[in-house]
């Protein structure tokens, strides 16, 4: 793993996210009803989830909770009401240090 330099060239989001720390919960704190995503015309989560947890694959949306920064945006913007959102238990999830 190398470090991401802040200027000069574009850095992939996945490399930027390497700077964060998580204690990942065994259970996902967000459940997405992916059947509903199939019908979703705009899929704003793909663009607006800052951690890129929602990835487009054809008509589908693939969701992974592990890199979630717990902002709650997906819950607010989902046009299909497909996102069941909870906070992680037992102190798990993102551990901000310099925020």
């Amino acid at each position, binding site marked *: 793993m190398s470090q991401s*330099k*802040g*200027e000069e060239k574009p850095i992939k989001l996945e490399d930027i996210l390497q700077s*964060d720390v998580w204690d990942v919960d065994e259970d996902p704190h967000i459940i997405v009803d992916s059947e509903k995503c199939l019908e979703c015309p705009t899929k704003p989560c793909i*663009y607006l989830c*800052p951690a890129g947890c929602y990835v487009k694959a054809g008509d589908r949306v693939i969701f992974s909770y592990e890199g979630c920064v717990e902002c709650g945006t997906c819950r607010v*913007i989902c046009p299909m009401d497909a996102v069941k959102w*909870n906070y992680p238990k037992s102190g798990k999830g993102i551990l901000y240090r310099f*925020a």
Partner: protein
Amino acid sequence: MSSIPTRFDVVVVGAGPAGSAAAYLLAKKGFSVLLVERGKGLGDKNMFGGKVYAQPIREVWPELDKEAPIHRWVTKERISMVDGEKVLTVEYRTEKKVSFVTYLTQLTQWMIKKAEGAGALLASEVTVEEILMRDNRVVGIRSGPDVIEADAVIDAEGVNRLLLERLGLVKKLDPDTVGLGVKEVLKVGEGNIESRFGLDKKEGLAWAIVGDITKGIPGGGFIYTNKDTVSMGLVLHLSKKLLDEGSFEGHVSSLIEGFRLHPYFKPYWKDAIISEYGGHLTITDAIKFAPSRFAYPGLLIAGDAAGLLLSLGYTFRGVDYAVYSGKLAADAVEYARNNGGVNYENLQVYDDYIRKSFMYEEIMRHRGAITLMNSFELMSKYPKLLTKVMEKMFEAEYKHEVIYNSLLQALKEEGISPFNLISQAFMMVKGI
């Protein structure tokens, strides 16, 4: 397990600035206080832009200036208007210790330790799942199988108020009332911070950026200088309009990347390493966001959960408002105890305390700003106009235009009538 208390005078949900302040003051006043926090108890779930106003916090902790983890006092305020690569910047310098920059994680940690030191019992790593109601009155909280009862529950759960939603006291978050804040923390080095931003030791800079840095989405950018890092990022106003149009140019991280790589800004963080990346919701329309009441039977709502955040575009006040609302909640509980008991009738004073506070007055007074900042049009039009005026004034190889003509030409090119300019400028000045 019989010696373990399951009843407290007050349960505070959320050890952020609001909850910690309330727990600290209540414990100091002799109440038994349980402060429940879902994070590991070190402020590790707290995220914000970067600047904190000091005075309201000094009312809770007069020792703030001396003891708190303050990185730098803000002595320089900058505002930039951006149109593509053209930038117009205004800078103001002050000596007065009005606001400071820090990591909220560190500041909150300090506040939590104060609360614990005063005798509040901190239970971290515990997610509250439900605020319990009995006979139309809040009686306690539940986490997993565990129930804790209390005379009063202070809800300081933050902007994502799942508990209040579950109680049915507020509706599901409305995209028109919140914005997404995305932030990168760039490790620049202490010496570089000072030389690049023209700061002395302990001096800090707060910088607001408007214009097409958000690619047409209402909102803006920010830069704050911490001790040896720079916090920079964007606030994007979420709205039904934005979501309905669904025309995103790319992932939100590409917007912040465009900001990071912008030729005007990037020299400030040359050779920096990215230390952290994060996202958080922020309140953009405090009035619409606020619950219909701040006090319910057995329940007081404080901080972000109460919508107490002032967002003016050029500055934001959330942390000090949170702390101050925590103080008012503690005051209300004390008032109730001294006036016949911690019951609903007595706790209702909290609603009054909030509505008569400087915070609420400020939010009401500046409510025009919300309409302005939510306007897709205005947020891009004026930065464009003003940078254009500058272009006419400075980008001349032989002949410089007189300022008045620069303005007229720019208005013409942007299709704005001088009358409109004056009326909208007046509205802006009045509203913000």
